[in-house]
């Protein structure tokens, strides 16, 4: 079932309902992350329950954590870190990677070779391992986390953008632009970018998922976001001892991570596609 939504008189897109569900969940988490400080029922550090790993109740909608703090408030604030850090890191990674990748494809020669080999070398280090080393060496503040995650995922974005741009670069319209005397910046941003933006956005989504998972993984190991703040990975980590009790405190943040990553994937697999047949 496809729904076609005319966005303007001339362009119409078809957007499947699976993609819409994905988009709705992403928007839901984005709103939570933005509004969290104003809507949390309790301060995140305050112990509000006499019992630890309390069950879901009318007072504490998602139960309490291992210290008796309100889980709903902690989860809402955690969204800020998980979504915020991942988003910042993926933006930096994809922007640098794509810009360098397109430049390498258009300039070619030595510039391409040196840059490609350097980023390949960076890519060959396992991502968790380099995360661990950096966090151990210079500690982990939020800024360090963002930069580290961005650096780890830049080579992948570079490879992807370069591979796409190399194909477009052999097209005759690029040759025409070159013989017209156009500058490299014009060729990159005006001739190549519009043709590869679709796959790049899909790549952006996948990379966002990877970064979310890596950040959650690092936090789970205790190397990510540091207490008293906690992202979703850290929430899973600190409440892991609640697993035998079936406490919502450990299940809910895991579900949150899953819902975000799956919905991003659903969205990028079902991005709106333009209907070419306009004579309807």
């Amino acid at each position, binding site marked *: 079932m496809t729904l076609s939504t005319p966005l303007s008189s001339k362009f119409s897109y*078809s957007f499947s309902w699976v993609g819409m569900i994905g988009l709705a969940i992403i928007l839901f988490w984005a709103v939570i992350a933005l509004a969290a400080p104003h809507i949390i029922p309790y301060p995140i550090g305050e112990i509000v329950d006499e019992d630890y790993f309390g069950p879901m109740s009318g007072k504490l909608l998602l139960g309490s954590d291992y210290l008796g703090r309100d889980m709903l408030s902690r989860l809402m604030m955690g969204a800020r870190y998980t979504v915020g850090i991942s988003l910042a890191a993926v933006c930096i990674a994809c922007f640098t990677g794509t810009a360098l990748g397109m430049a390498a494809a258009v300039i070619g020669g030595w510039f391409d070779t040196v840059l490609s080999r350097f980023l390949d070398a960076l890519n060959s280090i396992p991502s968790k391992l380099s995360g661990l080393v950096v966090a151990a060496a210079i500690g982990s503040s939020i800024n360090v986390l963002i930069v580290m995650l961005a650096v780890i995922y830049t080579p992948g974005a570079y490879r992807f953008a370069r591979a796409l741009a190399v194909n477009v670069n052999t*097209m*005759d*319209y690029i040759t*025409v632009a070159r013989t*017209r*005397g156009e500058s490299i910046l014009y060729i990159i941003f005006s*001739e190549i970018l*519009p043709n590869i933006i679709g796959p790049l956005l899909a790549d952006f989504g996948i990379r966002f998922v990877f970064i979310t998972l890596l950040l959650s993984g690092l936090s789970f190991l205790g190397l990510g976001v540091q207490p008293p703040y906690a992202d979703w990975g850290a929430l899973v980590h600190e409440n892991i001892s609640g697993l035998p009790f079936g406490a919502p405190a450990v299940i809910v943040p895991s579900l949150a991570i899953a819902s975000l990553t799956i919905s991003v994937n659903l969205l990028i697999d079902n991005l709106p596609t333009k209907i070419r*047949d306009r004579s309807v």
Partner: protein
Amino acid sequence: MENLVEIRGLKVEATTDSGRRLEIIKGVDLDIAPGEIVALIGESGSGKTTIALTLMGYTRTGCRISGGSIHVAGKEMVTLSERQRATIRGRDISYVPQSAAAAFNPTKRIIDQVVEVTHIHKLMPPTEARQKAISLFKALSLPNPEQIGERYPHQVSGGQLQRLAAAMALISDPKLVIFDEPTTALDVTTQIEVLRAFKSVMKKSGIAGVYVSHDLAVVAQIADRILVLRNGEVQEVGSTETILNDAKHPYTRELLSAFEPKPRGDHADLAQEAKPLLEIDALTAGYGPLQDDGLPLVRAVQEASITVQKGRNLGIIGESGCGKSTLARSIAGILPASSGKLTLDGQQLAPSARQRSHEQLRELQIVFQHADTSLNPAKSIEDILGRPLTFYHGMKGRERSARIDQLLDMVHLPKALRSRTPAELSGGQKQRVNFARALAAEPKIILCDEITSALDTVVAAAVIDLLKELQRELSLSYIFISHDLSVVEAICDEIVVMYHGKKVEQITPAISKIPQHPYSQLLFSSVPKLDPTWLDSLERDPELVKAYAHA
């Protein structure tokens, strides 16, 4: 006699991505007697391949047969199940694709692929199948029929591969063979050999054939009857003789008239003021690492010297691989020449486009063969045409917009196309936009690299007329590169024949139309003519063919 094929009221419809149904074949009737060859002819999008494929009960993805009946050898293809159709395909009906190079599996020996059909349908033991394949290779006059099957597809030439594909289709002794533009991708000199081989095998074995093509002259050589199609409807049916000599339908006449040689009329100014515009002096260009003598390893163009006069056109012709496109690319500075001198209007040009001045780049524009890849699919026609205006002439806003309208008008396109993207234009429209972009720069000379070869005959003829008209108005010069002699003759004052990277002859049609060099003679004589007896009566010096044709 009972007809082998009887198609009645065939309708095929396609579903577009917005869910709209589109009828692409609108009720076609077709009969084929046993042993008869019927040609389906028409421009691209006329439904000729779609009809040919329905004979096997097959439609492309997104299409379906929505009405009518297809009787082939007593079976109703429309109602058969897919499994039943599979037993007929390859055995009773076989198919020769347009590009044999894409149809062969590059990792398997040719002979194994040729006999595969007999294996699938369990027609004969493998040794017998191989014997039969070899006898077919002989009948198709392939060199070394005993050994050629042991090679891999990349080890034989394009013309040979096309004949091997025909052998694959014929090995099961089918009742009907479908040829889908089998010679379109071949050079004229090679095409003759392939056509001859097809014709003799088909006549000898008495197999019926459907020959899909857009080239009337090729069809005239091989078909008994011709079916002219347009927009999924039959325009005219008749014997080859009738269609060629006594066409009734206006569209058929249009197709025929596109074939009539239209020599360049205005040679009046030939004698006066011959001022050289572009001089190419001993230009050598190629690919690969530089050798000790400073020249590249593979020299695609060797020591070519050509002069183009102001307001005149020069045609460069030769078969694929002769270096004509490389020559164009090095004139444009895309592939810097490794030696030689280029002079445009008295000024020496640097070998690479990067070192040329803004003005020099503007004065020399190049138009490529494939309008599909030369227009950025992500941009509107307005942006595509507007960029050179802004870039070279600094035009903005209303001035630029008015000029875009003028340009569209010059190439006879409606202004409404401005906001469309290239994907929403037809092939001929795209090529006009492609040309309009070159005009936007207001150049002195335009290099046209095979600009009509991807177009249908009627559309190509219209583009050529447009080029002539614009030349009169704007006093341009063209360098017109093509493998199609009739196109070059229609527009050029001088013709340069290239072979193996060298210029072998320069002909001025106004003075003498008879080529002197043996290769030019071969090339000129290989262009198919509308006369159905042309192929049979054509005599070619076997020595010459051996020396120059890569068949």
